[in-house]
């Protein structure tokens, strides 16, 4: 690794430890400098502001999470099972105190800096994987054909619908446990799968329901 990349890594590590331990507001660039070594100028040559540094280091933590969450999007298993596991994993992640704080900060800063856009691009990368999975399900007839990006937006909104707002606004402090996120995910996925179910063939007239074909 190049010297500059090593320095960048060291700054991210130091910042991540401090942000996690004491939050965004209470952490200063001076403290990060003290922990990472070097000067404030070095930090600013890598990251243009404390906000950008915050997004970057929270996003660095996302990489690990991404791979473990995305592995649930397995086209060889039943879409319900895949999406419920994926949804629960996403919610556990989004409802963690650090992720909520990232989201609050990004929204708070949105009008003043381009940090919100930076953050959104990172979310969009995750969304691309979900779209690809849904697109594969549409191709194989497990879901009806529609715009997979739109479907991914709908799925994301349904997943967050019951649980995120009170946490974001700190109406409740305690993060939900796995049972609660799994329940919210299963309700969201149930509504999603009904909405995106493949079109059924012409309804079978009453009295002829003796077919064992899976399309019946």
């Amino acid at each position, binding site marked *: 690794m190049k010297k500059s990349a090593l320095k960048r890594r060291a700054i991210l590590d130091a910042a991540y430890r401090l942000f996690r331990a004491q939050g965004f507001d209470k952490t200063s660039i001076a403290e990060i400098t003290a922990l990472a070594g070097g000067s404030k100028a070095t930090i600013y040559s890598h990251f243009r502001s404390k906000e950008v540094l915050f997004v970057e280091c929270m996003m660095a933590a996302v990489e690990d999470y991404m791979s473990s969450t995305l592995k649930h999007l397995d086209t060889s298993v039943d879409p319900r099972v895949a999406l419920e596991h994926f949804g629960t994993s996403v919610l556990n992640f989004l409802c963690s105190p650090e992720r909520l704080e990232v989201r609050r900060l990004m*929204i708070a800063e949105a009008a003043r800096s381009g940090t919100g856009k930076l953050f*959104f691009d990172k979310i969009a990368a995750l969304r691309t994987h979900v779209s690809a999975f849904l697109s594969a399900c549409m191709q194989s007839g497990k879901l009806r054909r529609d715009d997979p990006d739109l479907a991914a937006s709908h799925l994301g909104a349904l997943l967050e*619908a019951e649980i995120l707002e009170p946490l*974001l606004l700190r109406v409740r402090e305690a993060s939900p446990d796995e049972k609660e996120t799994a329940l919210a995910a299963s309700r969201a996925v149930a509504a999603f799968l009904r*909405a995106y179910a493949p079109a059924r063939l012409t309804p079978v007239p009453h009295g002829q329901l003796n077919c064992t074909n899976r399309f019946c």
Partner: protein
Amino acid sequence: MKTKTEAKRQAILEAAAEVFREVGFERASMSEIRARIGGSKATLYNYFPSKEKLFFEVMHHAKALELEAIVGALNQDADDLKQELVHFGQKFLAVVYSPEAIAVRRLVIAEARHSDVGKVSFERVTVPIEKRVAEFLKRNMKRGNLRTADAKTAAMHLLGLLESEALQRVLLGVIESVKPDAISGAVRRAVDVFLSGYGRR
């Protein structure tokens, strides 16, 4: 320091509303607001300690009333459920995506980090809206227009779907605003998906 009066407070709120409407939250300044009402900066700060507090007082209440009226107008006995939902969705999103409402929402989320503003807003706005929408959906489940399900969850799913296409992007400043035809399209798509998810088979 002079004692605070309700008349003065109202005058400040009105002047502030004017300034916010004209230049938006970001560009509005306490000095501009003070210039419209006269008096000293100290007096103004005595009533409202910050631009944020003032903005919250002015806009949060106004937007809450608008949303309340829209949700209140939901006719649970309407003949055409889809049409009623589309109509509701368009009016609702037009307010949600208005620059003032977006600025209020950003402010509430930002302030939630330090104060109970988030809680106040949630209880004053979010809870009553969800409750009213849930009542509407419950009535339609009873009428056989929707399948029987948890009405509260269904309400949150409906509102989430309505906001699904643009809210994050607007809040994060990726896009400035949502055009009326984008709102119409998003509402139609959301209502279609909601009705397929919660309709009777």
